[in-house]
Protein backbone atom coordinates (compact mmCIF):
# COMPACT_ATOMS: atom_id res chain seq x y z
CA UNK A 1 0.00 0.00 0.00
CA UNK A 2 2.81 2.41 0.86
CA UNK A 3 4.25 1.90 -2.59
CA UNK A 4 0.95 2.99 -4.14
CA UNK A 5 0.17 6.01 -2.07
CA UNK A 6 3.63 7.55 -1.82
CA UNK A 7 3.20 8.43 -5.48
CA UNK A 8 0.43 10.82 -4.40
CA UNK A 9 0.83 13.75 -2.09
CA UNK A 10 0.75 12.69 1.56
CA UNK A 11 -1.74 15.20 2.86
CA UNK A 12 -5.37 15.77 1.86
CA UNK A 13 -5.17 19.55 1.41
CA UNK A 14 -5.14 21.38 -1.90
CA UNK A 15 -2.19 23.70 -2.44
CA UNK A 16 -3.53 25.84 -5.25
CA UNK A 17 -1.50 26.73 -8.31
CA UNK A 18 -0.59 30.33 -9.11
CA UNK A 19 -3.65 31.96 -10.70
CA UNK A 20 -4.12 35.25 -12.58
CA UNK A 21 -7.80 35.59 -11.66
CA UNK A 22 -7.70 37.29 -8.25
CA UNK A 23 -5.73 40.30 -9.49
CA UNK A 24 -7.44 40.44 -12.89
CA UNK A 25 -10.89 40.20 -11.32
CA UNK A 26 -9.94 42.97 -8.87
CA UNK A 27 -9.13 45.32 -11.73
CA UNK A 28 -12.28 44.26 -13.61
CA UNK A 29 -14.39 45.09 -10.56
CA UNK A 30 -12.64 48.45 -10.22
CA UNK A 31 -13.48 49.07 -13.88
CA UNK A 32 -17.10 48.03 -13.23
CA UNK A 33 -17.43 50.35 -10.22
CA UNK A 34 -15.85 53.33 -11.97
CA UNK A 35 -18.03 52.59 -15.01
CA UNK A 36 -21.19 52.47 -12.90
CA UNK A 37 -20.38 55.80 -11.23
CA UNK A 38 -19.46 57.57 -14.48
CA UNK A 39 -22.53 56.18 -16.24
CA UNK A 40 -24.98 57.05 -13.46
CA UNK A 41 -23.57 60.55 -13.10
CA UNK A 42 -23.87 61.16 -16.83
CA UNK A 43 -20.18 61.36 -17.71
CA UNK A 44 -19.22 61.11 -21.37
CA UNK A 45 -18.53 57.49 -22.38
CA UNK A 46 -19.67 56.28 -18.94
CA UNK A 47 -21.80 53.61 -20.64
CA UNK A 48 -18.80 52.29 -22.55
CA UNK A 49 -16.70 52.01 -19.40
CA UNK A 50 -19.58 50.28 -17.60
CA UNK A 51 -20.05 47.83 -20.49
CA UNK A 52 -16.33 47.08 -20.55
CA UNK A 53 -16.49 46.46 -16.80
CA UNK A 54 -19.33 43.98 -17.26
CA UNK A 55 -17.50 42.18 -20.08
CA UNK A 56 -14.20 41.92 -18.17
CA UNK A 57 -15.89 40.82 -14.94
CA UNK A 58 -17.90 38.14 -16.75
CA UNK A 59 -14.75 37.00 -18.56
CA UNK A 60 -12.75 36.64 -15.33
CA UNK A 61 -15.64 34.91 -13.54
CA UNK A 62 -16.17 32.33 -16.27
CA UNK A 63 -12.46 31.51 -16.55
CA UNK A 64 -11.97 31.38 -12.79
CA UNK A 65 -15.00 29.10 -12.39
CA UNK A 66 -13.64 26.94 -15.18
CA UNK A 67 -10.30 26.54 -13.34
CA UNK A 68 -12.08 25.53 -10.13
CA UNK A 69 -14.26 23.04 -12.02
CA UNK A 70 -11.11 21.51 -13.56
CA UNK A 71 -9.47 21.25 -10.13
CA UNK A 72 -12.55 19.72 -8.53
CA UNK A 73 -14.10 17.48 -11.18
CA UNK A 74 -11.26 16.65 -13.56
CA UNK A 75 -8.23 16.62 -11.24
CA UNK A 76 -9.93 15.36 -8.07
CA UNK A 77 -8.26 17.83 -5.69
CA UNK A 78 -11.37 18.22 -3.56
CA UNK A 79 -10.91 15.58 -0.89
CA UNK A 80 -13.14 15.44 2.19
CA UNK A 81 -10.86 17.84 4.02
CA UNK A 82 -10.85 20.33 1.12
CA UNK A 83 -14.66 20.16 0.88
CA UNK A 84 -14.87 20.82 4.60
CA UNK A 85 -12.67 23.90 4.23
CA UNK A 86 -14.74 25.18 1.29
CA UNK A 87 -17.96 24.76 3.26
CA UNK A 88 -16.53 26.64 6.25
CA UNK A 89 -15.52 29.40 3.85
CA UNK A 90 -19.05 29.67 2.44
CA UNK A 91 -20.60 29.74 5.91
CA UNK A 92 -18.21 32.47 7.09
CA UNK A 93 -18.98 34.44 3.94
CA UNK A 94 -22.71 34.21 4.62
CA UNK A 95 -22.13 35.34 8.22
CA UNK A 96 -20.30 38.40 6.86
CA UNK A 97 -23.25 39.01 4.53
CA UNK A 98 -25.63 38.85 7.50
CA UNK A 99 -23.69 41.66 9.12
CA UNK A 100 -23.66 43.70 5.91
CA UNK A 101 -27.46 43.54 5.90
CA UNK A 102 -27.52 44.23 9.66
CA UNK A 103 -25.85 47.58 8.98
CA UNK A 104 -28.46 48.50 6.36
CA UNK A 105 -31.30 47.52 8.70
CA UNK A 106 -29.61 49.55 11.42
CA UNK A 107 -29.64 52.60 9.15
CA UNK A 108 -33.33 52.00 8.38
CA UNK A 109 -34.36 51.67 12.04
CA UNK A 110 -32.15 54.58 13.05
CA UNK A 111 -34.20 56.87 10.85
CA UNK A 112 -37.61 55.23 11.19
CA UNK A 113 -37.98 54.33 14.88
CA UNK A 114 -37.61 57.93 16.01
CA UNK A 115 -38.34 60.05 12.93
CA UNK A 116 -36.71 63.48 12.94
CA UNK A 117 -38.72 66.71 12.98
CA UNK A 118 -37.37 67.53 9.50
CA UNK A 119 -39.42 64.69 7.99
CA UNK A 120 -42.55 65.59 9.94
CA UNK A 121 -41.85 63.36 12.94
CA UNK A 122 -43.54 60.46 11.21
CA UNK A 123 -42.58 57.32 9.27
CA UNK A 124 -43.21 57.16 6.39
CA UNK A 125 -42.19 60.84 6.18
CA UNK A 126 -44.83 63.47 5.42
CA UNK A 127 -45.54 63.58 1.70
CA UNK A 128 -44.24 60.08 0.95
CA UNK A 129 -46.67 57.56 -0.55
CA UNK A 130 -45.20 54.15 0.25
CA UNK A 131 -45.87 50.95 -1.68
CA UNK A 132 -48.69 48.65 -0.68
CA UNK A 133 -47.03 45.67 1.05
CA UNK A 134 -49.92 43.35 0.21
CA UNK A 135 -49.65 43.88 -3.54
CA UNK A 136 -46.40 43.01 -5.35
CA UNK A 137 -44.23 42.59 -2.20
CA UNK A 138 -46.53 39.85 -0.88
CA UNK A 139 -46.51 38.15 -4.29
CA UNK A 140 -42.69 38.36 -4.26
CA UNK A 141 -42.66 36.75 -0.82
CA UNK A 142 -44.59 33.79 -2.22
CA UNK A 143 -42.30 33.65 -5.26
CA UNK A 144 -39.15 33.50 -3.15
CA UNK A 145 -40.54 30.99 -0.68
CA UNK A 146 -41.73 28.77 -3.56
CA UNK A 147 -38.34 29.00 -5.23
CA UNK A 148 -36.80 27.86 -1.94
CA UNK A 149 -39.11 24.85 -1.99
CA UNK A 150 -38.26 24.06 -5.61
CA UNK A 151 -34.52 24.18 -5.01
CA UNK A 152 -34.95 21.79 -2.08
CA UNK A 153 -36.87 19.51 -4.44
CA UNK A 154 -34.04 19.72 -6.97
CA UNK A 155 -31.42 19.08 -4.29
CA UNK A 156 -33.14 15.99 -2.95
CA UNK A 157 -33.66 14.73 -6.51
CA UNK A 158 -29.92 15.10 -7.17
CA UNK A 159 -29.06 13.20 -3.98
CA UNK A 160 -31.54 10.48 -5.00
CA UNK A 161 -29.90 10.28 -8.43
CA UNK A 162 -32.91 11.59 -10.35
CA UNK A 163 -31.26 13.77 -12.98
CA UNK A 164 -34.41 15.00 -14.72
CA UNK A 165 -36.17 16.04 -11.50
CA UNK A 166 -33.01 17.77 -10.29
CA UNK A 167 -32.74 19.81 -13.49
CA UNK A 168 -36.47 20.62 -13.47
CA UNK A 169 -36.38 21.78 -9.84
CA UNK A 170 -33.40 24.03 -10.42
CA UNK A 171 -34.85 25.50 -13.63
CA UNK A 172 -38.12 26.32 -11.84
CA UNK A 173 -36.10 28.00 -9.08
CA UNK A 174 -34.31 30.16 -11.63
CA UNK A 175 -37.59 31.05 -13.40
CA UNK A 176 -39.16 32.21 -10.12
CA UNK A 177 -36.00 34.15 -9.27
CA UNK A 178 -36.08 35.95 -12.62
CA UNK A 179 -39.79 36.79 -12.19
CA UNK A 180 -38.98 38.17 -8.73
CA UNK A 181 -36.26 40.42 -10.15
CA UNK A 182 -38.58 41.54 -12.94
CA UNK A 183 -41.34 42.45 -10.47
CA UNK A 184 -38.86 44.36 -8.32
CA UNK A 185 -37.76 46.30 -11.41
CA UNK A 186 -41.41 47.00 -12.27
CA UNK A 187 -42.13 48.22 -8.75
CA UNK A 188 -39.01 50.40 -8.63
CA UNK A 189 -40.08 52.09 -11.86
CA UNK A 190 -43.63 52.64 -10.51
CA UNK A 191 -42.63 53.94 -7.06
CA UNK A 192 -43.45 57.55 -6.15
CA UNK A 193 -40.11 58.24 -4.47
CA UNK A 194 -36.47 57.99 -5.52
CA UNK A 195 -33.22 57.10 -3.82
CA UNK A 196 -32.15 60.76 -3.87
CA UNK A 197 -35.24 62.62 -2.61
CA UNK A 198 -35.08 61.91 1.10
CA UNK A 199 -34.35 59.47 3.88
CA UNK A 200 -37.31 57.20 3.08
CA UNK A 201 -36.17 56.50 -0.48
CA UNK A 202 -32.53 56.22 0.58
CA UNK A 203 -33.29 53.64 3.27
CA UNK A 204 -35.78 51.83 1.04
CA UNK A 205 -33.55 51.47 -2.02
CA UNK A 206 -30.37 50.83 -0.02
CA UNK A 207 -32.00 47.86 1.74
CA UNK A 208 -34.20 46.41 -1.02
CA UNK A 209 -31.62 47.27 -3.68
CA UNK A 210 -28.84 45.48 -1.82
CA UNK A 211 -31.18 42.52 -1.51
CA UNK A 212 -32.01 42.75 -5.22
CA UNK A 213 -28.32 42.55 -6.10
CA UNK A 214 -28.05 39.46 -3.91
CA UNK A 215 -31.00 37.88 -5.71
CA UNK A 216 -29.22 38.46 -9.04
CA UNK A 217 -25.96 37.00 -7.68
CA UNK A 218 -27.87 34.04 -6.22
CA UNK A 219 -29.58 33.47 -9.58
CA UNK A 220 -26.17 33.39 -11.32
CA UNK A 221 -24.85 31.06 -8.60
CA UNK A 222 -27.77 28.64 -9.11
CA UNK A 223 -27.46 28.91 -12.89
CA UNK A 224 -23.79 27.85 -12.64
CA UNK A 225 -24.92 24.87 -10.55
CA UNK A 226 -27.54 24.03 -13.19
CA UNK A 227 -24.91 24.04 -15.93
CA UNK A 228 -22.74 21.76 -13.80
CA UNK A 229 -25.62 19.34 -13.20
CA UNK A 230 -26.37 19.26 -16.93
CA UNK A 231 -22.66 18.64 -17.66
CA UNK A 232 -22.60 15.62 -15.29
CA UNK A 233 -20.07 17.35 -13.04
CA UNK A 234 -22.03 17.05 -9.79
CA UNK A 235 -22.33 13.64 -8.16
CA UNK A 236 -24.97 12.43 -5.74
CA UNK A 237 -22.71 13.15 -2.78
CA UNK A 238 -20.14 15.67 -3.99
CA UNK A 239 -21.82 18.92 -5.00
CA UNK A 240 -20.45 21.60 -2.68
CA UNK A 241 -21.00 24.37 -5.22
CA UNK A 242 -24.68 23.48 -5.51
CA UNK A 243 -25.03 23.21 -1.74
CA UNK A 244 -23.38 26.61 -1.35
CA UNK A 245 -25.75 28.16 -3.88
CA UNK A 246 -28.69 26.65 -1.95
CA UNK A 247 -27.41 28.05 1.34
CA UNK A 248 -26.91 31.42 -0.30
CA UNK A 249 -30.42 31.31 -1.76
CA UNK A 250 -32.02 30.51 1.58
CA UNK A 251 -30.05 33.37 3.12
CA UNK A 252 -31.40 35.77 0.45
CA UNK A 253 -34.86 34.34 1.13
CA UNK A 254 -34.64 35.02 4.88
CA UNK A 255 -33.35 38.55 4.31
CA UNK A 256 -36.41 39.20 2.14
CA UNK A 257 -38.74 38.06 4.94
CA UNK A 258 -37.11 40.58 7.28
CA UNK A 259 -37.32 43.26 4.57
CA UNK A 260 -40.97 42.48 3.97
CA UNK A 261 -41.87 42.67 7.65
CA UNK A 262 -39.71 45.69 8.53
CA UNK A 263 -39.43 47.90 5.44
CA UNK A 264 -42.57 47.07 3.46
CA UNK A 265 -45.11 46.26 6.20
CA UNK A 266 -44.02 47.99 9.43
CA UNK A 267 -42.43 50.91 7.53
CA UNK A 268 -45.74 51.51 5.79
CA UNK A 269 -47.95 51.94 8.87
Amino acid at each position, binding site marked *: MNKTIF*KFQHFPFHLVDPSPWPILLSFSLLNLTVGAVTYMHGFTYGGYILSLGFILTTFCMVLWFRDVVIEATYLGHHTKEVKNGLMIGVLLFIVSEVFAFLSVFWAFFHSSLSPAIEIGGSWPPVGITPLDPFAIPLLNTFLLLSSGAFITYGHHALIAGNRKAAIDGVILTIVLAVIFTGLQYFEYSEAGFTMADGIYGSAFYASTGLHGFHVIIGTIFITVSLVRIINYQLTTKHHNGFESSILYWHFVDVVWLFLFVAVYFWGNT
Partner: protein
Amino acid sequence: MFKTAVRAARPAALAARASTKSSTSALRAFSTSVRVSSGGPPPPQLYGEGAKAGTVPTDIEQATGLERLQLLGELEGIKVFDDSPLDASRIGTKASPVLVPSYDVERIVGCTGSPADSHDVLWFNVRKDKQSRCTECGSVYALDFQGEEHAVHHH
Protein backbone atom coordinates in the same frame (compact mmCIF):
# COMPACT_ATOMS: atom_id res chain seq x y z
CA MET B 1 -6.06 -5.13 -1.29
CA PHE B 2 -5.93 -1.40 -1.73
CA LYS B 3 -3.17 -1.79 -4.25
CA THR B 4 -5.22 -4.23 -6.29
CA ALA B 5 -8.15 -1.82 -6.23
CA VAL B 6 -5.96 0.94 -7.56
CA ARG B 7 -4.43 -1.46 -10.09
CA ALA B 8 -7.85 -2.63 -11.20
CA ALA B 9 -8.70 0.95 -12.09
CA ARG B 10 -5.65 1.23 -14.35
CA PRO B 11 -6.96 -0.37 -17.58
CA ALA B 12 -10.16 1.66 -17.41
CA ALA B 13 -8.09 4.72 -16.71
CA LEU B 14 -5.81 4.14 -19.65
CA ALA B 15 -8.77 3.53 -21.93
CA ALA B 16 -10.44 6.70 -20.71
CA ARG B 17 -7.22 8.60 -21.25
CA ALA B 18 -6.74 7.28 -24.75
CA SER B 19 -10.29 8.11 -25.75
CA THR B 20 -10.10 11.65 -24.42
CA LYS B 21 -6.57 12.33 -25.54
CA SER B 22 -7.40 15.13 -27.94
CA SER B 23 -9.70 16.90 -25.51
CA THR B 24 -7.15 16.54 -22.71
CA SER B 25 -4.45 18.24 -24.73
CA ALA B 26 -6.87 21.00 -25.67
CA LEU B 27 -7.61 21.45 -21.98
CA ARG B 28 -3.91 21.71 -21.24
CA ALA B 29 -3.18 24.16 -23.99
CA PHE B 30 -5.63 26.68 -22.61
CA SER B 31 -5.01 25.89 -18.98
CA THR B 32 -3.75 28.80 -16.94
CA SER B 33 -2.72 26.67 -13.99
CA VAL B 34 0.98 25.96 -13.71
CA ARG B 35 2.17 22.68 -12.31
CA VAL B 36 4.69 23.52 -9.62
CA SER B 37 5.83 19.94 -9.04
CA SER B 38 9.53 19.70 -9.73
CA GLY B 39 10.93 16.47 -11.09
CA GLY B 40 9.77 12.94 -10.58
CA PRO B 41 6.98 11.12 -12.35
CA PRO B 42 3.41 12.43 -12.03
CA PRO B 43 1.13 10.48 -9.68
CA PRO B 44 -0.76 7.57 -11.28
CA GLN B 45 -4.12 8.51 -12.77
CA LEU B 46 -7.23 7.20 -11.09
CA TYR B 47 -10.45 7.18 -13.07
CA GLY B 48 -13.88 5.71 -12.58
CA GLU B 49 -16.07 4.54 -15.40
CA GLY B 50 -18.19 7.69 -15.34
CA ALA B 51 -21.97 8.04 -15.21
CA LYS B 52 -24.34 6.51 -17.72
CA ALA B 53 -26.17 9.05 -19.86
CA GLY B 54 -29.28 10.43 -18.19
CA THR B 55 -28.20 9.57 -14.64
CA VAL B 56 -26.54 11.50 -11.84
CA PRO B 57 -23.02 10.12 -11.33
CA THR B 58 -22.02 8.70 -7.95
CA ASP B 59 -18.65 9.41 -6.36
CA ILE B 60 -17.40 5.90 -7.05
CA GLU B 61 -18.33 6.28 -10.72
CA GLN B 62 -16.78 9.67 -11.24
CA ALA B 63 -14.30 10.79 -8.56
CA THR B 64 -10.69 11.15 -9.77
CA GLY B 65 -7.28 11.93 -8.34
CA LEU B 66 -6.79 12.34 -4.60
CA GLU B 67 -10.54 12.33 -4.04
CA ARG B 68 -10.73 8.88 -5.61
CA LEU B 69 -7.69 7.66 -3.69
CA GLN B 70 -9.36 8.67 -0.44
CA LEU B 71 -12.63 7.06 -1.53
CA LEU B 72 -10.99 3.76 -2.57
CA GLY B 73 -9.07 3.76 0.69
CA GLU B 74 -12.28 4.17 2.66
CA LEU B 75 -13.88 1.24 0.80
CA GLU B 76 -10.90 -0.88 1.86
CA GLY B 77 -10.99 0.47 5.40
CA ILE B 78 -7.69 2.33 4.95
CA LYS B 79 -7.16 5.90 6.08
CA VAL B 80 -5.14 7.28 3.20
CA PHE B 81 -4.27 10.49 5.00
CA ASP B 82 -3.10 9.90 8.56
CA ASP B 83 -4.19 12.85 10.69
CA SER B 84 -3.93 11.20 14.10
CA PRO B 85 -1.72 12.94 16.69
CA LEU B 86 1.71 11.58 17.63
CA ASP B 87 2.24 9.48 20.72
CA ALA B 88 2.06 11.91 23.67
CA SER B 89 1.77 9.28 26.40
CA ARG B 90 5.49 9.57 27.21
CA ILE B 91 8.48 11.87 26.84
CA GLY B 92 10.74 10.65 24.03
CA THR B 93 14.34 9.86 24.94
CA LYS B 94 17.45 9.51 22.78
CA ALA B 95 17.33 5.76 23.30
CA SER B 96 13.59 5.59 22.62
CA PRO B 97 12.43 8.64 20.64
CA VAL B 98 8.83 9.35 19.69
CA LEU B 99 8.57 8.10 16.11
CA VAL B 100 7.17 10.44 13.45
CA PRO B 101 5.91 8.46 10.44
CA SER B 102 6.72 10.28 7.21
CA TYR B 103 6.78 9.77 3.47
CA ASP B 104 9.10 12.74 3.17
CA VAL B 105 12.64 13.21 4.50
CA GLU B 106 11.46 15.97 6.80
CA ARG B 107 8.39 16.74 8.90
CA ILE B 108 7.31 19.61 11.09
CA VAL B 109 6.30 18.55 14.59
CA GLY B 110 4.30 20.56 17.13
CA CYS B 111 5.19 19.35 20.64
CA THR B 112 2.94 20.05 23.65
CA GLY B 113 4.74 17.72 26.08
CA SER B 114 3.41 14.67 27.87
CA PRO B 115 0.57 14.32 28.60
CA ALA B 116 -0.63 16.38 25.61
CA ASP B 117 -1.11 20.12 26.21
CA SER B 118 1.37 20.19 29.11
CA HIS B 119 3.07 23.22 27.56
CA ASP B 120 2.49 25.69 24.76
CA VAL B 121 2.92 24.18 21.31
CA LEU B 122 6.50 24.38 20.03
CA TRP B 123 7.10 23.76 16.34
CA PHE B 124 10.33 22.32 14.97
CA ASN B 125 11.63 20.16 12.12
CA VAL B 126 12.44 16.47 12.41
CA ARG B 127 14.79 15.24 9.69
CA LYS B 128 15.53 11.77 8.48
CA ASP B 129 19.19 11.76 9.48
CA LYS B 130 18.96 13.57 12.80
CA GLN B 131 16.81 13.37 15.93
CA SER B 132 15.21 16.57 17.25
CA ARG B 133 14.54 17.59 20.83
CA CYS B 134 11.79 19.85 22.11
CA THR B 135 13.43 22.82 23.85
CA GLU B 136 10.57 23.05 26.37
CA CYS B 137 10.17 19.51 27.71
CA GLY B 138 13.15 17.73 26.17
CA SER B 139 11.10 15.11 24.36
CA VAL B 140 13.09 13.50 21.52
CA TYR B 141 11.55 12.85 18.12
CA ALA B 142 12.91 10.76 15.26
CA LEU B 143 11.65 10.36 11.73
CA ASP B 144 10.16 6.99 10.81
CA PHE B 145 10.85 7.30 7.10
CA GLN B 146 8.42 5.26 5.00
CA GLY B 147 8.78 6.79 1.57
CA GLU B 148 11.18 5.99 -1.25
CA GLU B 149 14.64 7.46 -1.24
CA HIS B 150 14.32 9.64 -4.33
CA ALA B 151 10.57 10.09 -4.46
CA VAL B 152 8.99 13.44 -5.23
CA HIS B 153 9.34 15.66 -2.17
CA HIS B 154 7.30 18.50 -3.43
CA HIS B 155 3.59 18.99 -3.79
